């Protein structure tokens, strides 16, 4: 299966394509111990800011540290939850409003584990990965995003 714990490539340039999600799903159909997949997708909202409406987010990261932090999240998730597979993808660079910047994909035998792991991993990413985001607004400026 997929339990090798070597660091995996997480960052992708620009938005995450729905077809990429489809390919990820299809590639798990040969893993017949899986009964449940939980997928989380983060999509860029057109929030209203002082300088207009958000048109996209420009992501940057401390990449070397982020890769290590993603690896720690992977390890702790595999320890806490009886997962069969786990994949994380996050965008760098510009992701326009309406497009996807985060894709967390966990698979397990039973559904409960998949639900719990999915939420755990997303919360860990929001809190612990050194990723930075500039929310570009329609009137030309930008606002630095801050996770709550």
């Amino acid at each position: 299966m997929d339990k090798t714990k070597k660091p995996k490539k997480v960052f992708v340039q620009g938005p995450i394509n729905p077809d990429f999600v489809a390919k990820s799903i299809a590639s798990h159909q040969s893993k017949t111990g899986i009964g449940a997949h939980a997928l989380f997708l983060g999509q860029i909202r057109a929030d209203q800011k002082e300088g207009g409406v958000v048109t996209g987010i420009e992501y940057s990261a401390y990449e070397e540290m982020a890769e290590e932090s993603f690896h720690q999240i992977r390890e702790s998730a595999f320890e806490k939850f009886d997962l069969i597979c786990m994949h994380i993808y996050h965008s760098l660079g510009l992701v326009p409003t309406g497009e996807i910047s985060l894709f967390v994909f966990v698979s397990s035998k039973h559904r409960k584990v998949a639900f719990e792991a999915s939420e755990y991993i997303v919360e860990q990413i929001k809190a612990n990965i050194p990723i930075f985001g500039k929310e570009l607004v329609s009137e030309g400026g930008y606002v630095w995003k801050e996770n709550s």
Partner: protein
Amino acid sequence: MNVQVMYFGMLSETTGLQSESWTLNEQVTVGTFREKVEEKYPLLKGKKFKIAVNKQIATDSVLIGRLSELALLPPFAGG
């Protein structure tokens, strides 16, 4: 000793730099470095940031060793 210091996100705007080399005394703590960097870039004082030493978030009491890689990290925005 020389250490590399990186500034990310809005902090690279504050300092006008992505990274620079600092000369620090041995046995300097993260807390002392924080004071020094806020002295050098007074606009940092109002900002929230964490300091990572060798890719680990460090508390103020951590000692900065030779060849350390320091990074000033503004609030995270992943997801």
